[in-house]
Structures are given as structure tokens and as C-alpha cells.
């Protein structure tokens, strides 16, 4: 009962936050509120038993997306949204109200929240719940569905992430000089000592935790996507505290580009190996002595590929944003 109550309260909070995001004009404040919005949605996922999803949202929303939006604000030098008076507000408002009303009418026939007899619960899901543990030997069903049963789907997603990274590089990667930063100062970090000491202590722990998430993902919540995001957040923290040049000395962008390709290559390569061993593409059963061992090995490799690709792509995106307009 208490979970339903928490659920309702959090949903009300998230609705209030969304309206505030809509009404505010200061973009900086909006991004702060968007951080809170993402905290709330991750808590909601946790309340609704979606542990892995909450994990991903926690790692993405609190770190990466806020940082990227802030970088955009810095690059476009726009703090405030211009509100034009001439805008006719009734047209979009009426479109939205009509669409919303139709959608709400549609929900009246939906099964109630948490109904175990709902159509979504009775088709393919029972198969996964009954067979996944037995067929792959992994307790975390989300991982086995992600990497094995729906391996094609995940391959597609990884390629989309990779493509987005390439596109960001093409758009912002080149050297772009801004005229007003004429002084060539030596990158000297003025951030306070306290921040640097704490960051030095935290960053190794974040990296170790990311590795735990990567390899424990078969048994508990976690996996390649989450680990990649957490690992890139660690390097982003390093960049923020010690400066961009220092970070590029630690991980040169050329290596990151190779890593991003390598991640996707590992994923597709596992598929090719399964074909060569006489199975179907991404059917890991042929990889090991027994079916279960093969599945386990295949999932481990594929998750590793996903982790490397996501880590490298997100970091490339961040470094490209951060380095834009550098003198």
C-alpha cells in the first residue's frame, strides 16, 4: 500500500515539475529543474520494480544529460528564453488539450495499473520469466532478454548510439575559433583544493563501481549500458575538476574513437563467430561446451562490447562539446 502512495506522491511532484519547466524562462533554472525531473522519474522506476531502468536513468539523468545541456547553454551564451508577445497561444493549447483528451479517453479501456491479467503480461513475458533463467543460467532476466533474446534489437540501439556520436563529431568536432578569446592563457586550475582532493578520492571508486556494475550485471541490476554511462561520468568529473587538457592527456580522443568502434565491433564480431561455429547470427549457444555456458559467455562478451561503446561514445560527445570554441 505504501508503495502505491509513494507512487502517487512522486507522480504529482513530477507533474508539478514539468509545469514549472514549461512556465520558466530562465534556461539555467530550467536545466536545474530538469535534473530534479530526472531524479523523480528514476525514483518512480525504482518504486515500480524496474530496477535496471532506474539504474540507467540515475546514471544518465543526474550526470550526462545535465552536463550536456549546461555545455550547450555555455556555447550558445543564451541564459534566457525570449517570450514573444505575438505568439498565438490558443492554437497550440487547443491542439494539446484535444490530443490529451483523446488519449485519456483511450486509457479508460486500459487494464488497471498492476493488473497481473493485463494483455501485456500474458503473451511473451511468461516465456521469458519461466525459461530465461534455465536457458541462459543468469538470474537477471533483463540482462538475458537484452543481450540474448533481443540481441538484434540491442545491436540496433548500440549502432544508433554510435551513429549519434559520429554525427556530433562531424557537427562540432572541427577546430572552431572564436574571436573574443584572444588571450592564450596557460590552463591553470583555480578550482579549490578541497574539490580536487575529494575528486581524487572519488574518481577511482566510481571507476571500480562501474566495473562492478559491468560484470555483476548478470546477477543483479546493471550491465553494459549502465557501466558505460557511469565510467564516462567518472572521466567527466575528472575533466570538470582538472581541466580538459589534463583529461585529454589521460584518454586521448583518438583512442576514444577507436574504442567506440571496437565496442560495436565486439558486438557484431560475436555474431560472426556464432555463424562460423555453425549457429545463427547472435545465437550464443554454440560458443561453449554446453548451451548454457555458450549463452553465458556470449552475453558477457556482448555486454562488454556495449559497455565499451557507450562509454567511448558518451565521452566523445562530452569532450567535443567541452572543447568547442577552445582557443
Amino acid at each position: 500500500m505504501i508503495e502505491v502512495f509513494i507512487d502517487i506522491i512522486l507522480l504529482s511532484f513530477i507533474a508539478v515539475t514539468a509545469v514549472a519547466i514549461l512556465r520558466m524562462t530562465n534556461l539555467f533554472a530550467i536545466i536545474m529543474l530538469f535534473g530534479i525531473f530526472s531524479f523523480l522519474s528514476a525514483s518512480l522506476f525504482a518504486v515500480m520494480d524496474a530496477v535496471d531502468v532506474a539504474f540507467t536513468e540515475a546514471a544518465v539523468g543526474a550526470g550526462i544529460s545535465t552536463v550536456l545541456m549546461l555545455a550547450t547553454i555555455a556555447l550558445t551564451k543564451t541564459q534566457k528564453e525570449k517570450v514573444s508577445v505575438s505568439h498565438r497561444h490558443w492554437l497550440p493549447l487547443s491542439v494539446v488539450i484535444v490530443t490529451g483528451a483523446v488519449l485519456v479517453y483511450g486509457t479508460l479501456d486500459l487494464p488497471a495499473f498492476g493488473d497481473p491479467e493485463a494483455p501485456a503480461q500474458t503473451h511473451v513475458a511468461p516465456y521469458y520469466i519461466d525459461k530465461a533463467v534455465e536457458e541462459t543460467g543468469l538470474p537477471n532476466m533483463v540482462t538475458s532478454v537484452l543481450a540474448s533474446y533481443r540481441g538484434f534489437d540491442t545491436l540496433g540501439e548500440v549502432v544508433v548510439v554510435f551513429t549519434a556520436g559520429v554525427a556530433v563529431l562531424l557537427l562540432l568536432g572541427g577546430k572552431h575559433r572564436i574571436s573574443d578569446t584572444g588571450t592564450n592563457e596557460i590552463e591553470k586550475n583555480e578550482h579549490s583544493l578541497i574539490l580536487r582532493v575529494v575528486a581524487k578520492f572519488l574518481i577511482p571508486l566510481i571507476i571500480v563501481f562501474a566495473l562492478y556494475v559491468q560484470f555483476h550485471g548478470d546477477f543483479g541490476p546493471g550491465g553494459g549500458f549502465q557501466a558505460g554511462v557511469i565510467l564516462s561520468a567518472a572521466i567527466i568529473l575528472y575533466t570538470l575538476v582538472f581541466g580538459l587538457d589534463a583529461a585529454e592527456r589521460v584518454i586521448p580522443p583518438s583512442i576514444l574513437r577507436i574504442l567506440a568502434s571496437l565496442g560495436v565491433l565486439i558486438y557484431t564480431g560475436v555474431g560472426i563467430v556464432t555463424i562460423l561455429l555453425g549457429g545463427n547470427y547472435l545465437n550464443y549457444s554454440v560458443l561453449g561446451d554446453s548451451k548454457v555456458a555458450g549463452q553465458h559467455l556470449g552475453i558477457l562478451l556482448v555486454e562488454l562490447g556495449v559497455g565499451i561503446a557507450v562509454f567511448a561514445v558518451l565521452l566523445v560527445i562530452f569532450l567535443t562539446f567541452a572543447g568547442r570554441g577552445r582557443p
Partner: protein
Amino acid sequence: MYTAVSLAILVSLGLVLARALLGPTVYDRIAAVNMFGTKTVLLIAVLAFSSGRTDLLDIALVYALINFTGVVAVMRLVTYGSFHSSRKADTKSVTADKG
């Protein structure tokens, strides 16, 4: 018992959310986001115990770690104006905030 604690955390979440909505300066909002993050960590930790799913503690752990990155990013932007230069930016434009 867990119910009482989660209710208390929800109340404080509401109060912090109100502060984030009201402003008036950016720093109030940043403080609110930071405190919201900590309270979310606690809420998830309490929830992990009340429902007996201790896996949720991993999420709380992620939050405790990643929340810091976001706050540092905001500080850096407010103080330096960009992520690559170490020159002090004209911060007046950022701090002059009316919600």
C-alpha cells in the same frame, strides 16, 4: 516504521522542490537540486528495506556518486562560464535570475 521514515523524506522532498521552484537565485536552485539528490538516495535506500529488495541499494549508490558530478558541472559553469577555459566569466548574467 519504514512507512513513517519514507513519509518524512517525501515531505522534505516536497519542501525542497518548492525551494527549487521558487528560486530566487541560481544558488538556491543548485542547493535544492543537491539536497533533492541526497534525499532521493535516502528514499531509495529506505524503499530497498521496506520492500526487501536490497538490489535497490546499487541505485542509491549510483546516485550518491553521480549527483556530485552534476553539481560540480554547474559550479564550473557558473564560475568559469565554459568547460574549457579557466578564466573567470562575467557571472552576473547567470546570477541575475528571476524565476
